[in-house]
Each structure stands twice: as C-alpha cells, then as structure tokens.
C-alpha cells in the first residue's frame, strides 16, 4: 500500500497537479510524435521484442528516429551511440542549467529525474521556476512540479508509442503526423526567444546545422551550437546589443 499512498499524496499536491496540467496542454504534440515514432519503429525491420524495448525504455524520440536507419543498416554500436549523443546534445545543455535545481537530491534521484526530463518538461519547468529554490521547502515544491510534468509526459509518450507500434499498419507514414513533434519543439523554440541575441542564436545555429548537414554522426548539431554560441558571445560585447540583452535577462 505504501507506494500507492505516496502516489495519492503526490496526486493531491497542488504543484504536482500544476506540472501535470501544464504538460497536458502540450501533450497532443508529444502524443502524435510518440505515435509516429511507434509507427517508424514497427516499420524499421526490428523484431517485436526489440521494438517494445526501444519504445518503452529509450524515451528520446529524436534519437530513436535518428538511430533506426543506422540499426537497420547494421552500423557499429559506437556510430549509433555517437549519433544519439549528438542528437541529445540539447539535453546536455539543459542539464547545466538544471544543476542548481537538482543538487540537493541524491545521485539516483537526480538520474531518475534526468532520464524523465524532456524538452517540454525542461521549458515548462524553468518557465514556472526561473530561479532555483532558496530553502528546502521551496526546492521540494519545485521538484513536485517537475515530477508532475515528467509523469504526465512519460505516460502519454509511452502510451502513444505503444499504440503506434500496435497499429503501425493502419497509420500511413505518408500523412506525416510526426511533424507535430517538430511543431511542439518549434513552440518551445519560440518560447525561448526572449532577447534579440537569442533569436540570432537560433538563426545562426539553424543555418550552420543545415550547412554542415553532410557531416557524419549528426555532428552538424554540434557545429550549429558552437557557431551560434560563439557569434552571440562575440556580439554581446558590442555596445549596441549588450544593453538590450542585459535589460531583458
């Protein structure tokens, strides 16, 4: 009964509910993306066991989609992993930002939360809690919000992935429903544009990532980040842009 009681207590908590509610409002994008990832996995030539393992455990849609053709082509393990790592580089960046929010937890607790923190969770979380908590109470409250949005995100992603796997034959990939996932990320991108330099960062990164697309291992993503951060940090020093950027921080 104990885990159930713990869950019921969480369920009645206002912050947990707020996290779940905020996630619910973006869940349709997440869900249709999960659905199409399920369809793509089922059509990739992997066995049922492999598809289910990947669908339930990997929990990283964009790296799953990038890895599927590599696995199908029999690429070496390190190539699949290096590609998944580059696609996941955005999470590495998010984790640097989240460090101050997380360090009061034990390592296993941090790893669990890290595993479940997706793009949507991260953006919703830092929007609601722009600064790390100052005392233990406040920090726990923040964590309950994070856990609420993680929980709803995980359940809707996994459910729809499984639906996609089960009904892969009935959902033509040609409909392109997976584009809803990109649109969800586009919404997140828009919500991160808070200064002119950040908008520039997105444009430079996108252009560089397109220009360097031919690189192996999805290294174009690394090139995009490096180019954008360098350009913005150089421009930050020029007199015309710095005050706007500072004022809006």
């Amino acid at each position, binding site marked *: 009964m104990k885990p159930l009681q713990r869950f019921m207590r969480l369920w009645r908590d206002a912050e947990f509910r707020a996290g779940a509610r905020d996630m619910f409002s973006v869940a349709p*994008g997440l869900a249709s993306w999960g659905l199409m990832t399920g369809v793509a996995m089922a059509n990739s*030539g992997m*066995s049922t*066991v*492999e598809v289910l*393992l990947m669908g339930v455990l*990997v*929990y*990283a849609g964009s*790296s*799953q989609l990038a890895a599927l053709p590599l*696995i199908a082509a029999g690429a070496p*393990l390190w190539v699949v*992993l290096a590609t*998944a790592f580059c696609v996941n580089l*955005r*999470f*590495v*960046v998010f*984790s*640097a*930002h*989240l*460090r101050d929010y997380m360090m009061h937890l034990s*390592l296993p607790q941090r*790893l669990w939360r*890290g*595993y*479940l923190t997706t793009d949507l969770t991260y953006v919703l979380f830092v929007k609601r809690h722009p600064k790390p908590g100052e005392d233990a109470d406040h920090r726990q409250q923040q964590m309950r919000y994070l856990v609420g949005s993680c929980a709803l995100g995980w359940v809707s992603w996994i459910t729809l992935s499984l639906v996609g796997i089960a009904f892969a034959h009935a959902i033509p990939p*040609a*409909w392109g429903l997976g584009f*809803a996932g*990109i*649109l*969800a*990320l*586009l*919404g*997140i*991108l828009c919500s*991160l544009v808070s200064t002119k*330099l*950040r908008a520039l*960062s*997105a444009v*430079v*990164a*996108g252009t*560089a*990532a397109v220009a360097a*697309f*031919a690189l192996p291992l999805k290294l174009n993503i690394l090139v995009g*980040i490096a180019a*954008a*951060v360098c350009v*913005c*940090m150089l421009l*930050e020093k020029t007199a015309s842009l710095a005050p706007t*950027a500072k004022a809006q*921080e």
Partner: protein
Amino acid sequence: MQSDTDLWTVITIFAMVACTVVTRSFFFIPSKPWPMPSWLKRGLNYAPIAALASVIIPEMVMSQGQLIGTWQDARLFAVLAGVAWYYFKRGIFGTIVCGMAAYLPLHVGLGW
C-alpha cells in the same frame, strides 16, 4: 516486425537508454561542488535555443539531405502558421494545432 531478436541490437538499445540518462543528467551527475566558469554561464544564455534550432531547422527545410528547392512544401507553411500563432497568441499547444491545420491539408490533400 520480424520475430528473430538479435542480441547485438538489444545491447544497442540498452546502450541508448544509458545515453538518454547520461545526456539528460550530464552536468548534475558529479556530486562535487563545481562553480560554473563565467564564460560558460554566459554561453548558457544562448546554447539551449541553439541546440534546439540545430535539431529542428534541418527537419523543416531539408529533405533527403538536401535543402529543399521549392516553396511548395507543406512544412514551410506549417512553420509559418505555427510561428504566427505563437507571435500573436502565445502557447505551445496552439502552435502545434495551428501548424498541423496548415500542414495536413497541404501535405495529405495536395501532396506538398
């Protein structure tokens, strides 16, 4: 789906799970206090949006590894519609719905 499970693929999948955990937790794995260098803190102003843009912009303007050469691509209109919604109304949900409302008729109906 095929029925024969390949051990090597299963190992690959578990390695990918580890990759998810490590990348998502990367900077909060070490327990030692670690004062962030100031250049990194400044870079963090721009890195999250750059990382996201690097992933999604190629998905919007490229197909088969090439920059698309036509404006008759449903994705472009979906992105415009989504950004327009966000600009006027805010909200990620509306961005998705508005973008898909532009995307599906053009993509499924006209084959763009």
